[in-house]
Each structure stands twice: as C-alpha cells, then as structure tokens.
C-alpha cells in the first residue's frame, strides 16, 4: 500500500526533480567549502547565498502553485505570509544580537533603544528561544491564513474578489509594518544580524548549511504537495478548481478543503520567508508590497501552474533573469521584460514551460497508440479559475 502510494505520488518527473535537488544540496556546499577559491569549479559564497535565495523563492512559488494550480485560489497576498515568517525569524535573530548592538542593550534591539522604548513589548517575548521562533514561523502565517480563509471561504468569496482582498490584506500589513510604533523596526525593518544558533550568519559554513537546509525544505514541501495532490483529497481540490458549485452539490464541504490547503500553503510560505531572511540579512516592510506577491504569481505562471516542479523552476528562472537584468546595463529594461513576461505567458504560454512540455509529451503519447485504443472519454474541459 505504501509502495502504491509512493508510485502514485511520484512519477518520473517528480523523482528526477527530487534527485536534482538532492544533488544540489550536496554539491553546491561541497564546491564552496572543499575547493580552493582558485579552482574553476569553486562556487563563491555570494553565489551560495544567491542560490539559497532562489530556493526560498521556489518554496514560495510551490506554496502558491498548491492553491492556485490545484484549487483555483489566486492569492495576491502570499508575500504577506512569506514576510511574516521572515519577521518571526528576524525577531529571533535580533534577540541573538544581544549586547553587541550599537547601543549595547542586552535585551532591547537597537531600534527600540533609539525610539526610547522602556521595555520589550510582550509580543517580542520568547523570541530568544529558537524552538519558539520556529514555531511562530509556522503559526503566525498559519493562524492569519486560517482566520482570513475562515471568513473568506465560508462567505464564498471567490475568484477575483478573493484576489483583490488578499492584495488588500498584504497592503494593510505593509502600511502597518512601516509604522515605527508597530514595534518591528518600521521603515528599516530588522537587520544587522550576528548569529543563528550560535553560528555566525556571515560565515561561509553557515551560508552553505542554510542553503542545504533551504533545499531540504523545498524537497520536503514538494513531497508534501505531491502527496496531497496525488491523494483523493487532491482530486477533490482539482474538482473544486474546475467546478466549485458542482463539487459542493456532490456533498463535499468545499470551504473546509480550501481552508486546509490555504493554511498549509501559508505555513509553507512562512518557512520560505524564515529561511530567506538569514541568507539575505534583512527583512523590511517592502516585502509586503503587493507587487512582490503578484511577481511570485508570475513565477508560477511561467513555470506552469498545476505542475509543482514548474513553479519551482519558474521561480528560479525568473529570478535569475531578474538578477541578470538588474545587475547590468540592462537595469532600466527589467520592468519592460517583466511586464512583457506577464503578457507573453498569459497570452501565448498559458500552460507555462513545464505544462507545455507535458502537454506535448502526452499528445505524442496519445497519437501513437491512439489508432488502436478507444477514443478518450469526454471530460468536461476544465475552466481555469472559475
């Protein structure tokens, strides 16, 4: 039974994806730490951090693909969950600075000393303990998504309405976190981290470890998503995506399914954010900007929604392109390229890269034995994003 489940969940593509990830998790740190800098195969530390950043984005894209690709929920506010996870991790890292800050206050972070805060606000309690912070990384985005989804799905807010209010959610959070008296460092956010679990954040060893952990988290997220979409539960999700009203009439509690998968997705986004912060070294309110969340959606669209591997690949590709464009003389054209990508993908490549490849593959497979086999049963064409 277990083997049957595994066989169902992991087709060749999924296994290949996991193998590539596992190889990366080992190879990149090894090439960074073991080879001397003079070697042509040496991977410099800044690249390790950059790749780590891409991997975190890939995990975020995966979480979006789970709800958009398989359940038809287009969240334009997933950046909010990502940033909340990041802030939870940032708070832990801030508390680790201790007396090494500019003002050398053993308890209060620098910005609180600067703002003349007499004591630590209660919601900062406990963040000096890593397990507590790790729990919060999952809990804060999860609870927010649960409460938000509870209200939204029960009153059957769907389609573009849901997209717009998720966007309003992240916008409201951004406005809030920009305020100094919110207690999260205001405009500047949280930065100047020193160490994590006793290791120096800047050290190449820590960076390599963070990269490996990020890849493992991505693999784990992929396995969870894969297991969900391949199960019976996943079939119901797809049914909801394609015909929500019909699924409801068949007796499924659509809102519970949606709520579960939305909350899970928010937790994944939170983990991605938490791993992102120590590798980038800063978290500030601009992570909540609605534009970021929409950009994350386009990664999924480029890779192919409803493919999981595609989401991760799309995130890496688009972000590599972004790094390439914005670091050279092409910087002014990046927004043209990104905007053009949005239009191109929606008009010409609605299945995304991986989706189109799979489509070709299945068409070719269908064509060869099709003459012998019976014609495929007529299935109601899925109506994307009803």
């Amino acid at each position, binding site marked *: 039974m277990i083997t049957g489940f595994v066989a169902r969940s992991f087709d060749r593509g999924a296994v290949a994806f996991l193998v590539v990830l596992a190889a990366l998790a080992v190879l990149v740190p090894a090439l960074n730490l073991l080879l001397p800098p003079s070697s042509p195969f040496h991977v410099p530390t800044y690249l390790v951090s950059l790749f780590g950043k891409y991997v975190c984005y890939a995990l975020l894209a995966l979480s979006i693909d789970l709800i958009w690709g398989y359940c038809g929920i*287009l969240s*334009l506010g997933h950046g909010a969950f990502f940033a909340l996870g990041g802030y939870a991790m940032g708070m832990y890292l801030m508390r680790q600075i201790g007396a090494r800050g500019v003002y050398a206050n053993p308890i209060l972070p620098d910005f609180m000393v600067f703002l003349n805060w007499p004591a630590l606000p209660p919601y900062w309690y406990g963040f000096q303990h890593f397990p507590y912070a790790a729990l919060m990384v999952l809990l804060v985005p999860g609870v927010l998504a649960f409460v*938000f989804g509870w*209200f*939204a799905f*029960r*009153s*059957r*807010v769907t*389609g*573009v*309405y849901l*997209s*717009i*209010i998720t*966007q*309003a*959610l992240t*916008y*409201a959070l951004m*406005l*809030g976190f*920009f*305020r100094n008296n919110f207690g999260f460092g205001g405009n500047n956010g949280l930065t100047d981290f020193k160490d994590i679990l006793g290791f120096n954040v800047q050290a190449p060893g820590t960076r390599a470890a963070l990269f490996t952990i990020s890849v493992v988290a991505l693999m784990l997220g992929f396995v969870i998503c894969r297991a969900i979409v391949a199960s019976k539960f996943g079939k119901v999700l797809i049914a909801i995506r394609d015909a929500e009203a019909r699924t409801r009439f068949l007796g499924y509690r659509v809102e519970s399914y949606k709520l579960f998968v939305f909350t899970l997705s928010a937790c994944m986004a939170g983990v991605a954010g938490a791993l992102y912060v120590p590798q980038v070294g800063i978290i500030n309110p601009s992570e909540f900007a*609605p534009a970021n969340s*929409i950009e994350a*959606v*386009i990664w999924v*669209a480029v890779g192919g929604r409803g493919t999981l591997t595609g989401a991760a690949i799309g995130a890496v590709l688009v972000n590599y392109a972004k790094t390439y464009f914005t670091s050279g003389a092409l910087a*002014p*054209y990046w*927004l*043209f390229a*990104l*905007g*053009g*990508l*949005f*239009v191109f*993908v*929606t*008009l010409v490549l*609605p299945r995304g890269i991986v989706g189109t490849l799979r489509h070709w593959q299945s068409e070719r497979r269908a064509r060869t034995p099709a003459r012998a086999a019976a014609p495929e049963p007529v299935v109601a064409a899925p*109506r*994307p*994003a009803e």
Partner: protein
Amino acid sequence: MRHWADRLVAFLLALALLVAALPARAATYEEALQRFTADDFEESEAGIGEVAESGNPLTAQVLTALRDGRLLYSPEKKQVFIKDLQDRVLDAASGQPIVGDAPADIDTVNVNNRLRRTIDAVLGALTLLDPDPGKRYAAAQAVFKSKDENVLPALDKVIARETNARVKKAMNEARAAIVLSSDAAEADKVAAIAVIRERGDQDSLALLSSLPADAPPAMKRAATEAIGSIEHGLALWNTVQNAWYGLSLGSVLLLAAIGLAITFGVMGVINMAHGEMVMIGAYVTFVVQEIIRARNPALFDYSLLIALPLAFLISGGVGILIERGVIRFLYGRPLETLLATWGLSLILQQAVRTAFGPTNREVGAPSWMSGAFELGQLTITYNRLWIICFSLLVFVALIGLLRLTRLGLEMRAVTQNRAMAAAMGIATSRIDALTFGLGSGIAGLAGVALSQIDNVSPNLGQGYIIDSFMVVVFGGVGNLWGTLVGALSLGIANKFLEPFAGAVLGKIAILVLIILFIQKRPRGLFALKGRAVEA
C-alpha cells in the same frame, strides 16, 4: 469725498490718541521730525506721537521706516531721511529722493522694543481707518492678537463710525480682547466675554483659557460657559470639516474608481493597468502645460480645459489598444486578465519613467483653481471644490451616456446577455473595445484632475489602484450608483477615522472593515440580482 472724510477722521483720531498719551503741544510735521535727530528713545517716542498727530501723508512711511531701522538722520544738518526698499535715500520732510550724495555723518535712528510697540499701535490705529474694508478687517484682527491697550481709545471711535458689518464685528472682538486683558470693570469684562464667545474660534478659546485664575466669580462663570460653548461649536465645525475633507477624498476616489467600475463592473475585466491610465492623463496635462508655457503663456488658464479632451482621447486610445491587443484574447479568464494587465501596468510605468524621468513633474494650477475662501470656521480651497464638482459632472455624464445614448444601450445589452445582444445584431467585440476605451478615457480625465492635488510621477496610478478596487468591490460590481455611494462613504469614513487612529491606522482600519464587509455581502452594497450574478 469719502476718502477725504476718512483722512480727516484719521487725523482727529491720531490726535485723540496722543492727547491721552502725551502732554499736548501742537507741532508741525517738520518739527516732529527734528525729534528723531536726537537719536534718544524718549525724544523718539515724542516724535512718533507728533508725527502721527501731524496727519502728514508720509506718516505711515516714516513710522514704518523707523520700526524697520530704515530711518536715517544727520546730526549736523538736523535732517531726517528714509531709506526705501530699493535702498534710495529720500528726504523725510518731502518724500522726494535727495539730490546728490547723502551727508557723510548719516546714521540710523535707533529703536527699542518699547518704541516698536508704540509704532505698531499707532500704525494699527492708522490702518483701522484705511478706506479699504479688507485692510481695516486685517488691522482689527491684528489688534485682536496684539491686545494693545494704547489702541483702545482709537478703536472705540472707529467702531462708532464703522458701517461694514463684518469689519465692525471684528473690531468689537478686538475691543473685547483688549478689555479682557486690561484692568477694566468686571461688568465690562463679562460683556467682553460674551463678544469673544460669539467669535468662537481657536484664538478665542485660547484667550478665554488664559484668563487669570483670581478673576471674580461672575467673570469666571461666564468664561467657563463661553469656553464650553466655543468648544461645542468648534467640535461641530470640526465635524463639518471632516465631512468636507471626506467628501473631497471621496470625490477623488470616485474619479479614480468610476472608470474601473465600467471595465470591472460592466465588462467583468480586472484592469490592473487602470491606475496607469490615470497617470497618462496626468502626464498629458503636464505636456499640455509645457507646450502652453513655451508657446502661448496667455492660454495657461485654459490648460486644464485643453488637457481634458486630449487626456480622454489618449488614455481611451491606449485602452482600446490594450483591449484589442491583449484583453480580448482573455475574456472568460479573469485571473489571467489580471496578470496580463499587471504586466501592462509595469510596462506603461517604465515607459513613462523612461520618457519623463522618475521624478515628480510640476503641474501648475490655473488662477481659477488656486486660492481658498472661508465659510464659517472652514477653509475651502478652490481646487478641491472644482474636483468635487468635476467628479459629480463626470458621474452624471456617464450615467446619461449609459441611459440615453445608442452606445449606452448597446453596452447594457452586451453586459446583460452577450449572446442575445449578438443575435440582435450588435457587434459585441466593437462594443467591448469601446467600453474599455470609455473606462480608460474616464481614468484619463481623473488624471487631469488628480494632477492638481497629487504628485505627477510614474507611480501616481499605483497609489489609487487598491483604493479604487475597494470602492468598486464595496459599492457592488456592475452598478455605478454603488460606486458613487462606495466612494463617498469610504472617503468620509477615512477622514473621520483619521483623527482617532492617525492616517495610516485609519487606512488599515478601512481595509479591514472592507474585508469584513465583503464576508457579509460578498457582492457589495448594491449587488446585482438575478441570473446575471452567476454568469
């Protein structure tokens, strides 16, 4: 005739003023000027009085120069000079520029604060007699603030002959303010409190609150009551002001959202590039003004009127291009439309940034839109007033277009039942393009209006897009009246929350309220009913 009468009274009043302050001795203007050549504070004070008493037309000029340290004298020649603002040296006796060089021993007549106060009081009394009611009003307000007792006798006389009701009221208030801070009788002070209470603004509140603690009980009671009444009145005005600001914000939201209500509400298309249409309208205004400045500055006052049709056409044209080029391939796929139009918005923003630079561009206000007027305790600026009128005008025009014209009829037909409309011979794809163009064109009009109150930068549209969506969603999709009510109520709610919560928290509160509201009524205030809902 009147003018001369004023002069005469001015002279008499100044005389009366001096009789009270100085030992009376009639002196000519020239003699009075001689006092300044001593450069002694006592002598100067006497001189000030005598100059005022002389009634010479140069009085105000001499006194102002003295106060500002521009009055010069030559001890040897016993002459007094005025250095005017262009640094020319005038003979104080004749007011004419001197011939040849100034005397070598020329020096400034020194003044101290005591002298300055005396000068101000005398000058104040002089302006209280100015033939221009506006200047008299301003002088009365100045006296209200300075509460200079020296002016009181003059003020009393002026009040008796003042005919302009508004100026007279201001003078009475000024008089009351002086009485309150002087050592007048208790009954007078109580009467003064009543006058101040009538005035009822922030200044009167400050004045009454600063009364000494050891005042007699009757006076204290009157003051307390007056403070209560003023505070009540101020709170009322505050509410009116909030409502006005809210109305103003609401009209801006209405302008930004109404085009969206067409594309989103009527066509079901999410146009994330809507904000960029607004931005294009604002940049059209900028370009029109630049051309007018360069070619024909006389037309500047008409620049907005010229920009309006151009902005409508250009934004509408861009809108039609977008519809024909992108959106028509995506009908029935709202989420993809959203992403594609977001991409377009990035491209448009970056295009404008490349063409005009990333910084704010200056858009001027025509003369009929600048300035403000007072309504009770409320200051109303003309640009806000015009924008409110303009947004309502656009709204009415749009309703009229949808109700009364052939195009509107066809639009409504396509909205309600596309297939049936097509069967009746309506070219639905043409209507789609025109509807989208109309919505975008209205966004362009909004841009012209917003260029007057907001920074014209490539990010202009971004600031409005989320708010506009909130308005449309709150008001109910597919219903223009819902958009009107939604925009105005969101604007007013925002401004009423601001004093309690601050601007940012108020905005967050509004967003949260809308999110909760959508839970309750997922299709907005004015929801469409019937089959169209699920279509």
